[in-house]
C-alpha cells in the first residue's frame, strides 16, 4: 500500500511537470478560458440592440410621420428613413440592414377613413433568422405603443381591458450575458476534461510509452489515476478561476452555494475525464483522438447543451441524444446556481446522472484496456 502511494505520487508529479513544461496545455487550461470568458462577458450578446432597419416613407401624412418618428426614437432600432423603398431593399440584400417598414402611400388616408391604422408591412431578412424574429417582435412593440398613444391623444384611454404583465424571474433585464457566462464555463470544463485528457493519454499510446509503463511494477489503474488527477485538478482550478472572474469582473450574480458548485463540478469533471479517457483508449492516435474529442466533446457542449440553442426546440431524436451529453446537465446546474440558487430538486438529479454517466464511461474504458493488454 505504501509503495503504491509512493508510485502514484511519482506519477502525478511527472504528469504535473509535463503540464507545466508544455506551453500548449497551459494555453488550453488558462489562456483559452480567459479569451472565452472575455468574449462572452464583454462582447457576445444575444440581445439585439439597435437593429438596423429602413423605414420606407411613401406617405407624407401626419400619421405616417408620427409612426416613422416612433421607429426612429425606439431604442431597439437604428432606423434609416427613405422615400424610396428600392434603396432600402438594396441595403437588405447587402446585409446593411435587417428589415424594412413600409408605410404605403395611402397610409394616412386609410387611417382617416377607417379611424384605425391600416396594416403595416414589415419585410425582414430571413437569412438572419433569429434577428428576423426579433425585428418582428420589436416592430410589434413599437406599433402597439404608437397606436395606444394615438388613442390616448384622442381621449380614448387604452389602459383598460385585459393586459399581460410579464415578469421575468432570475434575470429581469433578460441580460443574455448572465446566462451565457455560466454556459461558457461549462464549455471550458468540457475542453479541459475531454480534449486535453484525450490528447495526453493517446500520446502515451501513440508513442508506446503506455506499454513501457506497464512493464514497470505500476498497475494500469495507478497509471490512469495518476494521469487523471492532474487534469482533474487543472479543470477544477480553471472552473474556480472562471467563476471568480464571472462574479467579480463581469458582475454575474451568483445565488448558489460554493458546496453545490463544487459538487456539480466534480461530478461533471469525472464524466468528462471518463469520456476523454475512453476516446484515447479507443483511438490511440492523437489526430483521431483530437477529432473525436472535438466532435463528441466540444461541439456537443457548444451546440447540444442548451447553452445557446434551446433543447426543447430540437427534434425528438436529437433531444434524446442530448441526454447523454454531460455538458447538458452542467449548463443547467451552472445557470441555476448563478441565477436562481440552490434548487436541490433540480441540481441533485443532474449530479446523479453525471455520476452515472461517469461510472458507465469508466467501466467501458476499463474493459477495453483489459482487453488490449491480453
Amino acid at each position: 500500500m505504501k509503495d503504491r502511494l509512493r508510485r502514484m505520487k511519482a506519477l502525478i508529479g511527472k504528469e504535473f511537470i509535463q503540464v507545466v513544461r508544455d506551453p500548449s496545455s497551459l494555453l488550453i487550461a488558462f489562456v483559452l478560458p480567459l479569451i472565452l470568458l472575455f468574449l462572452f462577458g464583454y462582447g457576445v450578446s444575444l440581445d439585439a440592440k439597435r437593429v438596423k432597419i429602413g423605414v420606407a416613407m411613401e406617405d407624407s401624412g401626419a400619421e405616417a410621420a408620427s409612426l416613422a418618428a416612433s421607429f426612429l426614437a425606439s431604442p431597439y432600432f437604428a432606423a434609416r428613413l427613405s422615400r424610396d423603398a428600392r434603396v432600402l431593399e438594396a441595403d437588405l440584400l447587402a446585409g446593411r440592414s435587417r428589415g424594412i417598414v413600409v408605410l404605403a402611400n395611402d397610409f394616412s388616408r386609410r387611417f382617416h377613413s377607417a379611424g384605425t391604422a391600416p396594416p403595416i408591412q414589415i419585410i425582414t431578412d430571413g437569412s438572419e433568422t433569429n434577428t428576423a424574429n426579433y425585428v418582428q417582435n420589436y416592430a410589434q412593440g413599437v406599433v402597439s405603443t404608437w397606436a395606444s398613444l394615438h388613442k390616448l391623444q384622442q381621449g380614448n384611454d387604452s389602459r383598460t381591458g385585459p393586459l399581460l404583465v410579464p415578469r421575468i424571474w432570475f434575470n429581469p433585464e433578460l441580460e443574455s450575458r448572465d446566462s451565457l457566462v455560466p454556459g461558457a464555463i461549462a464549455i471550458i470544463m468540457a475542453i479541459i476534461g475531454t480534449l486535453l485528457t484525450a490528447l495526453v493519454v493517446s500520446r502515451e499510446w501513440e508513442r508506446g510509452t503506455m506499454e513501457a509503463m506497464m512493464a514497470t511494477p505500476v498497475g494500469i489503474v495507478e497509471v490512469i489515476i495518476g494521469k487523471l488527477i492532474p487534469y482533474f485538478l487543472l479543470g477544477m482550478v480553471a472552473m474556480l478561476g472562471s467563476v471568480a472572474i464571472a462574479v467579480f469582473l463581469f458582475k454575474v450574480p451568483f445565488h448558489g452555494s460554493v458546496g453545490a458548485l463544487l459538487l456539480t463540478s466534480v461530478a461533471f469533471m469525472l464524466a468528462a475525464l471518463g469520456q476523454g479517457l475512453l476516446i484515447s483508449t479507443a483511438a490511440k492516435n492523437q489526430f483521431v483522438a483530437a477529432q473525436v474529442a472535438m466532435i463528441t466533446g466540444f461541439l456537443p457542449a457548444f451546440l447540444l447543451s442548451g447553452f445557446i440553442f434551446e433543447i426543447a426546440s430540437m427534434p425528438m431524436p436529437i433531444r434524446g441524444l442530448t441526454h447523454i451529453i454531460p455538458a447538458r446537465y452542467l449548463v443547467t446546474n451552472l445557470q441555476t446556481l448563478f441565477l436562481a440558487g440552490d434548487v436541490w430538486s433540480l441540481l441533485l438529479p443532474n449530479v446523479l446522472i453525471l455520476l452515472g454517466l461517469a461510472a458507465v464511461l469508466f467501466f467501458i474504458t476499463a474493459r477495453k484496456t483489459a482487453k488490449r493488454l491480453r
Partner: protein
Amino acid sequence: MVNRIRALIIKELLAILRDKKSRFVLIVPPLVQLFVFSFAATQEAKNQTLAVLNLDHGKPALTLEQDFAAAATFSRVLHLDHAAEVTPVIEEQQAIAVLWIPEDFSRNIESGQQAAASFILDGRKTNTAQIVQGYAQRIMNDFRARLGPSGPADGARLVVRNWFNPNLDFKWYTVPSLVCILTTLISLLVTSLSVAREREMGTFDQLLVSPLHPLEILVGKAVPALFIAMLEGTFMVLAAVLLLRIPFNGSLPLLYASMAVFLLAIIGVGLFISSLSMTQQQAILGAFVFLVPSVILSGFSTPIENMPQWLQTVTLGNPLRYFMIIVRGIFLKDIPAALVWHQTWPMAIIAAITLSTATWLFKKRME
C-alpha cells in the same frame, strides 16, 4: 521543381488518407455533424411547456387560457391549482412560463376596468424567454382585439414578409453556416498537423536534407489541405442541397472562387501554428485556440451587430466572418458578384498576411 512539389503533394495526401481511421474521421463525422447540428442549432422556441394558474372561472379567463394553449409554441400545458406551485414549476424548469390569471380578471373586463394577467418567465433561458414573451404579447393583443370595438387594441396590425426565408426555417440559416465552420475545422486540423507530425516523428530532418526548398515544402503542405478541404466543402454543399433541401439560389463558380480564397487564409493560419509547434498535441491545441474564438466571432451564434464597437473591429480580421456572409448570401439571397467581391478582398488580404507570416516563421525555425 514541379516534379518535386508533385511528389511531396502525393506523399502528403497519402500520409493523411492512408490510415483508415484518419480517413474515416475526415469524411464521416463532418457529414454526421452537418445533419445533427443543422437540426439542433435552432434559436426558435418550440415544444415548450406552459403552466397555467387560472384562479378565475369566468368565460373571458377561460378563453384566454385556451388561446394560450392553442399557440404553436406550447406543446404541453400544465394546470396548476395553487399559487404555491408556481415557484417550483419555474425553478425546476418544468415549464418555461406560467400564465397567472387572477380571480378578478373576468369581473374587471366586464366592468371595463384594467384586468392584468401575469406572465412569469424563466430568465435563465434568455433567448427563449424573450421569444416566448413576444408570442404571449401577440396572443394577448389578439385577445383584446376580439373583445370588440370597446377593446382598445385597434388595427395596429403587421403584415410580415420574410425575404429569402419565407417561413423563417432555422435550418436554412444553420446549414450554410455549418458548411463554413466544418470546412474551417478540416483545413485547420490538416495543415496544423502537417509540419508538427513530421517534427514529432523525426521525419522533418529528412525533409531538410532533401533538395526541397522551404517554399516548396510549404506549397507541398498547403495544396493537399486545399484539395481535401475543397472536396469536403463540395460534399457538404451537395448534402445540404440534396438531402437537407436547402435552396441554393446563387452562383456556384462564385462560391468556389471565394472558398479557395477563404481556405488559403485558414491554411496560412494552420501552417503558422504548425511551424510554431514541436508536437502534434501543441498543434492541435493551437488550432483549437484559434478555432473557438473565430467561430464565436463569426456572427453565427450571435450577430456581429450586437457586439460592442471594439469587438466588431476585431472581427474584421476574422476570415470566417466574411465567408459566412458569402455562403449564406449565395445560398439564400443570390447575391451578385459585386457583393461577393466586397467580402472576398478582405479575405485575400488576410490570406496574403497569414501565408507570408507562415513562410517567414517556417524559414526562421529551419535555421
